[in-house]
């Protein structure tokens, strides 16, 4: 009765409406869930919004969460442009923090703050870049699957930081409590307008990434490599070099995000330092269509959702699991809108008539999740138009 058909590309304002409607749908869905669980949806949502934006304190918290998310997403977006599926953000954040902490621990306490911060930033970038380059090199030279490789690198990084936390860098001054010594005091990022200056870094990076992709030769090469490696080869682009440069930049920026979080708000390296930013940032980069300015905005919204969820747990005693479900529903609806941007569902009017074939113009829409009619139809549709 229903079938899924490919849709023409929508104009920008229409796709914006689809996206907003989807998010609204997610909110309604979450509201129903809240009501079923016996809470007042209106009160919950207003608490969520007030918790995220309602006071100076709330805004500070929201932005503090948003900064590392935005920087991480900016970094990942560079790799995604090349269709290099870097899902190793977690590991790259951790390694950025490890390298930055190492610098802080090994510099004399007399080092001026500005120099220490710059050194730690460089170290953070380096750490992330190395952690991304390892799978990058294997991908470029031996065609390994970077998705799995970057993912596995996350667990290695996590184990390394656990080892540092419990064994190697365990602070003897903490009286048996497993803890790494905090970074030096002068390395704490200064605060401007109530938030540490990481927000300036994030904004500058957003502009720089936008500029890199749109206005530089390297950015152009990154885009060409991402769209079609044969074309890049044909045009004389050194695909390996471009990809490794892009991957190093991607990992480096993600590592820098870790360093910013470390010096801006956490001050101490621990296994929990990422707060899942490496994964959340994937969603942000994707929701933003890999566009740098949009990433900055979406990061704030996602951060608000996270911050607001914490507030409703405190204020309304909503269990943390429910808060997580609310977040999940809204995010899922937002991502689900991508489906409705590309496909439409057609209702066949005469009931009893058999299902129509779920494809148009020869393009198999297997991504739609629709079950193909039969393997045979699938193949013939493909070949028939070839």
């Amino acid at each position, binding site marked *: 009765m229903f079938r899924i058909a490919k849709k023409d590309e929508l104009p920008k304002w229409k796709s914006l409406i689809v996206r907003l409607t989807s998010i609204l749908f997610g909110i309604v869905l979450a509201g129903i869930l809240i009501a079923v669980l016996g809470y007042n949806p209106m009160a919950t949502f207003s608490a969520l919004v007030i918790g995220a934006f309602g006071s100076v304190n709330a805004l500070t918290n929201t932005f503090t969460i948003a900064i590392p998310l935005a920087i991480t997403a900016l970094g990942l977006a560079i790799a995604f442009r090349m269709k290099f599926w870097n899902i190793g953000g977690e590991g790259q954040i951790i390694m950025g923090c490890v390298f930055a902490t190492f610098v802080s621990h090994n510099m004399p306490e007399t080092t001026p703050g500005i120099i220490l911060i710059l050194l730690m930033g460089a170290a953070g970038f380096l750490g992330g870049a190395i952690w991304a380059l390892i799978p990058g090199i294997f991908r470029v030279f031996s065609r390994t699957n970077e998705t799995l490789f970057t993912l596995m690198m996350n667990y290695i990084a996590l184990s390394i930081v656990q080892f540092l936390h419990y064994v190697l860098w365990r602070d003897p001054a903490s009286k048996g409590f497993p803890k790494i010594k905090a970074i030096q005091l002068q390395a704490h990022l200064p605060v401007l307008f109530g938030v540490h200056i990481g927000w300036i870094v994030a904004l500058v990076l957003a502009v720089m990434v936008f500029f890199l992709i749109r206005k530089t030769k390297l950015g152009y090469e990154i885009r060409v490599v991402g*769209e079609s490696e044969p*074309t890049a080869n044909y045009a004389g682009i050194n695909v390996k070099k471009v990809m490794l440069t892009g991957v190093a930049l991607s990992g480096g920026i993600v590592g820098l995000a870790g360093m910013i979080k470390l010096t801006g708000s956490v001050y101490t390296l621990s296994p929990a330092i990422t707060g899942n930013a490496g994964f959340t940032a994937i969603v942000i980069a994707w929701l933003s269509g890999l566009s740098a300015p949009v990433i900055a905005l979406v990061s704030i919204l996602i951060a608000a959702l996270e911050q607001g969820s914490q507030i409703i747990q405190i204020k309304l005693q909503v269990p943390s699991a429910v808060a997580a479900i609310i977040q999940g529903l809204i995010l899922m609806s937002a991502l689900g809108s991508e489906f409705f941007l590309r496909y439409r569902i057609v209702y066949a009017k005469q009931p009893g008539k058999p299902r129509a074939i779920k494809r148009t113009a020869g393009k198999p829409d297997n991504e739609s999740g629709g079950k193909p009619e039969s393997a045979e139809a699938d193949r013939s549709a493909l070949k028939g138009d070839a």
Partner: protein
Amino acid sequence: MSENISSSPNPAFSMQGISKSFGSVRANDNIHFQVRKGEIHALLGENGSGKSTLMNILSGIYKPDAGTIEVDGSLRVFHAPKDSIACGIGMVYQHFMLAEPLTAAENIAAGSSGIILNRKKESASIRAFSEKYGMEIDPDKPVVQMSVSEKQTVAILKMLYHGARILVLDEPTAVLTPQEIKKLFNVLRKMRENGCSVVFISHKLNEVMELCDRVTVLRKGQSIKTYVVEDTCSYELVEKMVGRKVDLSIDRPVPCPDCKDCLVVENLSLKNDEGFQKLSDISFTLRHGEILGVAGLAGSGQKELCETIAGIMPAEKGRIFFDGTNIFGKSPREIIRMGVSMSFIPEDRLGMGLVASMDIADNILLKDYSFQKGPFLKTAAVRVKAERIVKELEINTPGIFHPVRKLSGGNIQKVILGREINLKPKLLITAYAVRGLDINSSYTIYNLLNAQKVKDVAVLYIGEDLDVLLELCDRIMVMCAGKVTGIVDARAITKEEIGQMMSGTKLKDIKGGAGNVSNC
């Protein structure tokens, strides 16, 4: 079975008022198409005229928005390809859907009822069946070892073996030599004698005239008219197909008489990743101001030849001289840096020649940006250039910021050709430049290539349509399985002779002498 009903007017199938839209595009618009029992019926039309859509509806892949299909006089609704197959309709696509590692018999028997496959019995019955239609196949030969022509035979046989009485062939001759085409035609005529119906999709008019009984012309999704082939001529058909009168002759300016050699290839050899010899010992010379055609069956090494010359694929051994400089083993960027002005228009335009999702301006930048100084892109000049190319080549586009993948095939080819010609190359390599283009666009491309030739550009033209190669090129190099079987003067050779060379016969064995060999 053997009763002769070829003159019977009763239809094998009849499609009435078929309409099908994809979004805002009306691919089929009230099409009427009727095929009789025991006839070979050509379906003629340019790309995008709705042939594929109509046949996909007949085979049950698409459902029509409106219209009816009758098979053997009773109304049928096809929900899936299996319904169409059950009505005796068999499709043979350009890409035969065969399991390569299995034998012919196993492929043909696949889909038969029963659980246990008696190989010997199947093999014998398939052999007997194939002889009835005058087809020669070895049922126990694995498909992977077969030539394209043999694979096609297997695909056709598979359909007939499963009871197809109506066979639809989608451009079956595109991949065959003239000799193989003759064989195929004989098979199809045999089928006609047996009362089967054949739908023959093609845009090669001479084949339609030679083989078919009737022809239905489609244009812009509408069925224009059905003719009895004997009562019409190719000019009338082209006019109906294109919608206006078209001059079908191709110009051939006299090649530059005293121009120097541009490209000299010596003993070029190449193995692919799997260790197969794709090019063996290729040697030829291409002068400035001439068009050298390359003929050969698909996959005879044309792609590899182009890509090794362009530096995209590293060759194993040999030498490639461009105006006296050896460019063997150099990467595309190195070749550009050496000041060699060569343009290569690859077969896969959207996958290799262009970036499909980028706009026209960004695609023209592809060959320009590396000449720009500094790390930043300069786009202003490219925009002016893009506007100029769009105007000069009459590219039909809403603007230079339109993604190239949304353009039609002809316009896509014009974008890439415009970009390359604008680099003022001394050597132009084109692989299947008119593949998928309609007649009008094809002739525009021929004219553009001739214009380059007159400017003393050396043109290497990889083609598939022998008629075009014979009319457009000055000399033709014929390739077979990675080897050169001969280089001939295009003005003094016949299609049949080229066909023999395409299937591996050396030139000297055909003519018994070097009378026709050009000095190279």
